[in-house]
Structures are given as C-alpha cells and as structure tokens.
C-alpha cells in the first residue's frame, strides 16, 4: 500500500514536469507547426545560467528568476533570428534546423560551462516528508514542483483566455492571414509564443535539476518524455499536454517501481507507439470541424 502511494506521488511530481515540458512543445507546435527539438538544450542552458548566478553567491531564488528570464529572452531571440527563416517553408527544413540547434547549443554549453556533472541546489528538502512513523514519497521540493507548474499553467491560461494579447496570440496560431487582416502583428506574436514556451521549458529544467546533478545532456531524455506526453495529448491541445504529462509520469513511475527502472525508456516508446497506432490524433484530438 505504501509503495503504491509513494509510486503514485513520485509519478505525479515527475508527471508535472513532463506536463510543463510537453506544454512548451505544444505552444510552439500550435503557433508555428514546428516540433522544437532544441527545447531541451535551450532549457539546459538556462539552468546553467541559474547555476552561474547561484555560484556567484546569490540566492537560489535570484538564480531561478534569472534563468526564467534567460529562457524568455533565448526563446524570443531564437525565433526572431533563426527560426523565422524556415517558418512557412517545408517541414523538413524546420526539423533539420531545430536538430542543428540542439547540437550547437549542446556544444556551446560544453565549451562555456564544462562537460562534467555539477550539483544543483534545491530550495526545499529533498527527503520524504515524515507522517508519524512512516516516510511518504513526497518531498518539500516535490510539492514546490507541483505548485510551480500549476501556477505557471494558471498564468498561461489566464493570459490566453482573458487578455487581448492572448487573443491575438491564439488568432495568429489558428489563422495567421486573417489575423493580419484584423491588424495583428503576427510575427511579434510568434516571437512572444516562442519566448513563453522557452520560459516554461526553463521552469521544467530547473525543477528536474533541483537537488540533483546537471551536465549539458541532462535534459535530453526529458525532451523525449515531453514529446511522448505531447503526442499523447494530441500535440495541438495545451490541456492534452498537461493530462498527457501526468499520465506518462504516473505510468513510467509504476513501470519503474514495479517492473524495474531499466524498462522506463522502453515503456515510453511502447506508449508512444500504442498512441500512434490506436489514436494517432492523441487522446484529446478535436473532432474534425464541419466544412460548410
């Protein structure tokens, strides 16, 4: 019973991080129809920025905020000056470009920050909380992880649903030409979308890094899980990304807890294949709209 609870709690925490990462992928896919393979090294770079700030003697929180801002800026710069050239072109161009960025950013991090493991601090305890005699598998940092992801998602929903900028961003993603005719500066909205996605990716990277070791490749497996979660949710649906992330986190946690951690990657691949075979549009695929 206790193992079941701990496995579920661990899965939930990890699932929140996958959800955040999947959400970052979905935000970019929705607006530019590009799968951003460079999401992992972009997020990794900002974690190293945080580490540099913390190592310079500033608090964890200053490092945290600086990393998120760095993510925002990096996303904007990459969209405006690199990705802009392949938007609207053949899909393969964008795939090659983001894969190229993956390699370039990786190499950059190795050169600037060193290709070795470094420990990353956590602002809250990373040991299980004790309830009476037993220790449950939920840490202070785990609670922070869940809260942080929920807060950022809540803010994003509020931005998209209730503000003029959010409406302009959605219009640009759904129908760029009509949006232009209605006076929306679509290019600017795409830049903003990439910036926000990169911020969410940075958050996921900071949460994975907390209390553990980081090196230039530490996010690479997460981009795979984030991608599986996004496909699970239908790639087009932010809500789907979140639910997909949670489902994947729970599933992988149970695989790891009951079958063995060496099977986790295989299980993720199995889930991906099952979704693509049985429900290629994802669990949250919207019904085809009525054509009139």
């Amino acid at each position: 019973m206790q193992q079941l609870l701990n496995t579920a709690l661990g899965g939930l925490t990890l699932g929140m991080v996958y959800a955040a990462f999947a959400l970052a992928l979905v935000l970019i896919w929705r607006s530019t129809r590009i799968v951003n393979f460079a999401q992992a090294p972009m997020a990794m770079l900002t974690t190293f920025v945080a580490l540099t700030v913390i190592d310079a003697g500033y608090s964890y929180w200053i490092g945290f905020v600086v990393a998120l801002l760095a993510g925002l800026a990096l996303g904007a710069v990459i969209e405006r000056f690199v990705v802009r050239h392949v938007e609207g072109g053949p899909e393969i161009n964008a795939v090659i470009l983001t894969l190229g960025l993956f390699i370039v950013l990786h190499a950059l991090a190795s050169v600037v920050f060193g290709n070795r493991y470094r420990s990353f601090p956590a602002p809250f305890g990373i040991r299980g909380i004790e309830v009476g005699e037993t220790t449950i598998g939920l840490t202070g940092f785990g609670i922070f992880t869940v809260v942080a992801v929920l807060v950022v998602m809540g803010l994003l929903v509020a931005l998209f649903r209730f503000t003029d900028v959010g409406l302009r961003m959605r219009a640009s993603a759904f129908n760029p030409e009509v949006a232009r005719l209605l006076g929306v500066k679509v290019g600017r909205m795409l830049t903003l979308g990439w910036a926000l996605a990169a911020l969410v990716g940075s958050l996921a990277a900071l949460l994975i890094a907390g209390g553990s070791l980081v090196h230039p490749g530490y996010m690479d497996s997460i981009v795979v899980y984030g991608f599986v979660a996004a496909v699970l949710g239908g790639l087009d649906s932010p809500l789907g990304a979140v639910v997909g992330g949670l489902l994947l986190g729970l599933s992988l946690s149970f695989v790891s807890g009951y079958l063995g951690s060496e099977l986790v990657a295989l299980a993720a691949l199995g889930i991906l294949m099952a979704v693509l075979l049985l429900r290629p549009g994802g669990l949250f695929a919207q019904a085809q709209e009525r054509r009139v």
Partner: protein
Amino acid sequence: MLRIEGLTTSYGPVRALQDVSFTAERGKVTAVLGANGAGKTTLLRTVSGLVRPDSGSVHLGEHDISRTPAEAMPALGLAHVPEGRGVITELTIAENLHLGGLGRGRKVKAGDLDRVYDLFPVLGERREARAHTLSGGERQMLVVGRALMAEPSLLLLDEPSLGLAQRITAQIFALLRDLVAEEGLTVLLVEQNARSALSLADHGVVLNLGRVVADDRAEVLAGDDQLRHAYLGF
C-alpha cells in the same frame, strides 16, 4: 476614397493584374466583376497589403497605401473580408468580434459588441459558441460584423454570396445598403454573381485576364448586352 492607378501584380511569372486603374467613390458601392481567374481576388489582396504590387499605386484618401503591410490597414480604416469567409473557427463568436475591434488600436468594451448583436441577433444568441458551429450564412454575418467592429471607412468584400442561399445573400446585401446609406461606408465588392452585385452596386468595374475591360455606372453595365454575354454570364 480609394484610388487605384496603374496597378500591376504578379505571382512569380504569372501576371495576375495588369495596369489596373479605377476609383471607388466615398459612400458608394463599387462592384468588381469578372470570371474566375480574372484577378478580382488578387486586386483585393493587393489593395489590403497581403500581396505587394510590382508597380502602380493605391491611395486611401490622402494616404499612399501601396506599400503598407496588411496588419497596419485596420488602423487606417480599411477592413478586408477575405474569400471563404475568414472566420477563425477555433475562437468563439464573441472572441472573433473582439479581435475585430482590436484592429482600431483601442480597448474593446463589452458594449461595443452589442451593435453587431443588434444587427445580427442570431450571433448574439450564441456569442459564447465556437465559430465552427455556425452555418455558412451565419459565418458571413460574423465576418461582416467583425469587420464593422473596426469601424472602417472602406470595406473590401470578397465573394460574400459564395455558397449562400439567395435569401441570405439578399439579407446581407440589404444590410450593406443600409450601412452605406446611413454611415457613408465605402464598399468595394468582388462578386462572380454579377446580377446580384450590380443590383446593389452604384458603380462596376469588369476585369478580364487581369485588365479592366469596362468601368461604368452599374445600370449601364447591366444594360450592355454585349458585355453581359461576353464577361458577366447573365
């Protein structure tokens, strides 16, 4: 109001418009007629800045808008309702209208939408429904209403009757006639259905293979048998 002079537009090697000149008078409806491929849609897309012309000029009042990007047009008072309706189907009716209002560059208040709901009660009843649930006629009402949200002085309409029942087309044309009469709106209307377009329009321009072949008052065009048979198909 809208003055087009020597406008030439190409898609790669294909000339879609060749040396097109005409004027759309303020407070009048000008119909642009012609067969499929005559360049009607290209004309509207060039005027609204979606396509860059090779040469020639477009003046909106005093402004030379030949090189103005599409997203700057609503603030200048130009609204373009594209062919195929242009409803953003994933957004709700209220959101589509709100977006139209943002084009003016001012905040949109809840009351601003009521004017459109008064014109089209069917939209008001379903304001929170997603636009993909609307029928073709309702979509046409929504895009016209959305264009009006920006309080334009010039309205470009591309094939508003396409695929709609005669009754609904008549209803939308009657509304346009009222707006022109009451508010001095200028309309540039592209239509394949020449008969109904000329019934609404004050003035008509006939395009054939990208060139202007006739430019006259609507009743003159409608009364010219040779022109009707050659280009207008009725």
